């Protein structure tokens, strides 16, 4: 057992007294992230301010054989920043410097605690922006985005965090500092930056992130189309894709989600069973040509009303309703689960039908908010924890929605991550061998399994002690864990 007081003293030497939190009430405010269903009180919380401090903190954990978990703004929806019991929570919210903006090469180098939207705010006066825009972009951190490979509404056209991170400075779980990728193209060797992004904090802690900046598009056009069914709205999306148009974003909300958004931020959505937000961006001539076509296709699919954003303010209002939708559901239901399943877009109607059948069977309501362009569903299963048995039924329904996604060749998570929440479902998507092979990567980075333990993968596993020939680990011999 590690002496907690000694660890506290060591951490104070590294980050100073103000950077170590160990009082129980204070620690408890860190016991959960954006997914409040999971709670674990960490042994202590450390708030480093520099990469050197992160390195020293991680090294101290390594030496003390103490697990650690990195946390940014704590907005993740899969329990990815859930602390390890008896472990150290490394909170990066004080590392929020935008270190460098290189407009000539369209890159920004930022610390992990920088808030996603602040990057765009910083570079916007020069006509640039940072493309990945998760709904929580006004609070989520770049470090968290890197861990989760965050997407956002505009990733349909522009890709995810992984497509916008070209370089990382990373503290490995033993305290070694390495640079993966960089500013330039095609770094030599394995694409470890690519492997690191989306690894949910299990491979190390990023202390600097090099981001691609994009030139603000010349034109942006946004419309809101109302439909009397999600099927009809889905039909519109199919038509748009079939026409060879790649919108910057296509978002859909169903009646319940519209109701919630209206209650929260009053975006003035039309009264409908489904609304579609379609946004095109790019060079003016191309956008205006394609936008006319999109408008026509939306009408063809039976839209009752089409509103076109006439100003930036109106466009922002369309999006505000969409981006606030998760939290807004708090206005129409005391509790809810958010899921993040993905399906091939063409299976949309079938899966939505299946979801509403399953919900009806359990007497529950499901609000749907999703990235319709890429098939990323966000079913929000509404329930009231005070009603006996509802929470269990909601949990079951959430799981079955994910299984329905898998039945259609999809994935259990499109952008929220597996984390603590969905690790038990990962074996439904991947075979034991698949997971074993993924574990090889973990073993190369974190052979002792102390970096964000208990996340992503379902069972505790150990890495072979030495490379090459594998030996039987004593714990394995005792039948307590599997070995790689």
């Amino acid at each position: 057992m590690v002496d907690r007081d000694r660890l506290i003293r060591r951490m104070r030497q590294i980050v100073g007294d103000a950077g170590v939190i160990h009082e129980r009430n204070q620690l408890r405010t860190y016991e959960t992230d954006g997914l409040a269903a999971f709670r674990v009180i960490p042994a202590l919380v450390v708030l480093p301010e520099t990469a050197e401090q992160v390195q020293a903190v991680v090294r101290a954990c390594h030496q003390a054989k103490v697990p650690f978990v990195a946390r940014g703004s704590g907005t993740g929806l899969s329990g990815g920043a859930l602390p390890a019991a008896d472990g150290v929570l490394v909170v990066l919210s004080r590392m929020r410097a935008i270190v460098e903006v290189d407009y000539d090469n369209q890159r920004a180098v930022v610390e992990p605690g920088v808030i996603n939207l602040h990057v765009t705010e910083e570079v916007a006066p020069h006509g640039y922006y940072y493309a990945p825009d998760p709904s929580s972009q006004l609070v989520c951190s770049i470090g968290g985005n890197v861990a989760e490979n965050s997407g956002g509404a505009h990733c349909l056209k522009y890709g995810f965090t992984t497509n916008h991170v070209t370089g990382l400075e990373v503290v490995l779980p033993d305290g070694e500092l390495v640079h993966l990728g960089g500013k330039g193209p095609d770094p030599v060797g394995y694409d470890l930056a690519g492997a690191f992004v989306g690894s949910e904090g299990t491979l190390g802690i990023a202390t600097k992130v090099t981001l691609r900046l994009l030139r603000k598009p010349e034109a942006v056009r946004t419309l809101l189309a109302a439909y009397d069914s999600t099927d009809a709205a889905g039909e519109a999306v199919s038509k748009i894709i079939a026409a060879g148009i790649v919108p910057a974003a296509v978002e859909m909300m169903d009646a319940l989600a519209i109701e919630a958004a209206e209650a929260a931020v009053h975006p003035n959505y039309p009264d409908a069973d489904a609304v579609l937000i379609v946004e095109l961006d790019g060079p003016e001539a191309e956008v205006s040509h394609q936008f006319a076509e999109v408008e026509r296709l939306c009408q063809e699919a039976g839209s009752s009303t089409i509103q076109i954003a006439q100003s930036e303010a109106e466009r922002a209002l369309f999006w505000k309703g969409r981006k606030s939708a998760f939290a807004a559901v708090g206005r129409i239901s005391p509790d809810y689960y958010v899921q993040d399943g993905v399906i091939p877009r063409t299976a949309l109607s079938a899966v939505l039908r299946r979801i509403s059948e399953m919900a009806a069977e359990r007497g529950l309501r499901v609000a749907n908010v999703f990235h319709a362009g890429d098939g990323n569903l966000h079913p929000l299963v509404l329930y009231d924890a005070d009603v006996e048995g509802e929470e269990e039924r909601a949990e079951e329904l959430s799981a079955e929605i994910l299984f329905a996604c898998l039945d259609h060749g999809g994935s259990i998570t499109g952008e929220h991550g597996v984390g603590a929440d969905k690790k038990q479902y990962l074996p439904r998507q991947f075979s034991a061998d698949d997971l074993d092979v993924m574990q090889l990567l973990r073993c190369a980075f974190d052979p002792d399994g102390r970096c964000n333990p208990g996340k992503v993968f379902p069972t505790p596993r150990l890495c072979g002690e030495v490379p090459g020939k594998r030996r039987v680990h004593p714990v394995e011999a005792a039948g307590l864990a599997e070995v790689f």
Partner: protein
Amino acid sequence: MAVTDGPELGTQVPPAFDRHHPPDKALIDDCVHCGFCLPTCPTYVLWGEEMDSPRGRIYLMDIGLAGEPMNDEMVRHFDQCLGCMACVTACPSGVQYDKLIEATRQQVERRHPRTRRERAFRALVFSLFPKPRRLRLARAPLRAYQRARVSALLRRTGLDRRLPAQLGALEALLPDLGPMEKVPELTPASGQRRARVGLLVGCVQAVFFPQVNAATARVLAAEGCEVAAPPEQGCCGALSLHSGREKEASRYARRTIAVFEAAGVDTVVVNAAGCGSSMKEYGHLLRDDPKWAERAARFSAKVRDATEFLAELGPAAERQPLPLTVAYHDACHLAHAQGIRQPPRQLLGAVPGLELREIEEAEICCGSAGVYNLFEPEPAAELGERKARNLLATGADLLATANPGCLLQLRASLARLGERLPMAHVMEVIDAAIRGAPAGELLDGRPAGKTRA
């Protein structure tokens, strides 16, 4: 003679809250832990710590309700909340943090034993600020007063050695004062009477910014309002209410209600954001008092911020041009607590020749927050300087806002940076425009707190 911390330091009171209006569990449960409030919370912006964010404070309330004790750490994080309510604006789930923190502060005030020096300083502040008479007595050579009275008082309690930062904050805030400008008890409407309104002249505003009250009365009159300013009125209780001093606040509230009821006005106009926001809460504050609950609710419904009222009323008086660039600063208790953002901008923007500029990080508090800058001087100073820098970056000629606390705080913050910027209350700008005063009158080497000759 050193003051020792009492033996009560470090004590814990289990459970954190008693049964007299603990923070409402149902309101706490509205929080879905999404974190959207974090970047707008001034203390989170400063320190990046969960416990000093709205989400963290709500979490502390929740674990307090669940039985964790109210210890010094917990109290510290509640104390450090500025009560700016930026989180209320940011929250997509509609969490009523204002109600939660108010209830919590009352619990803290009742149940948490403060140290002797905390008690002494609080007693000083609450015996001085809400009392126009005492503040007024203090007006004539203010510096001398500070030396003779405040400092003497503090020296007697030995506080001067213990509270350099708080004392410094107090001293830095108190502006040089110009001549008094009293608002008449009744100002007739010019032209046709469109409304009869009461005007809260307040305590801090009346003493430090009498010219703002005078300007407000003139503007209201010019817009066709008969303006009653009952001389019996005093402090509205905002400072007490926002510090959890429920009884004191209730006393002030009852008196204020009674005074304006007697004045027989349709509307009570307030030109200090913090006052307006707490007067709109009287109904909630006095909800348990069977004699007053209904009267209070009725009164609250009549309260309007001056900018809100004028925007509703619509302009009648002609505005003369004021060739100025003006940065408008959102007072938290106006923008967040009362949701009033457009009316002051609308009023200013309608003045011919006036160019309005927005301030970066507009949603972040300037650190004034009632008496926060006295009780928590360090974070208040940091926030003040942050705001001052954003303010200077606008390149505006003049800062306009609608709250006396912000004016004091920003003036002091600019001074610390070695900078000056002319400041005015929105009402002063409108008054100047209606009177056709030259722009120079608003700019003329006239820092906040000084009246024109």
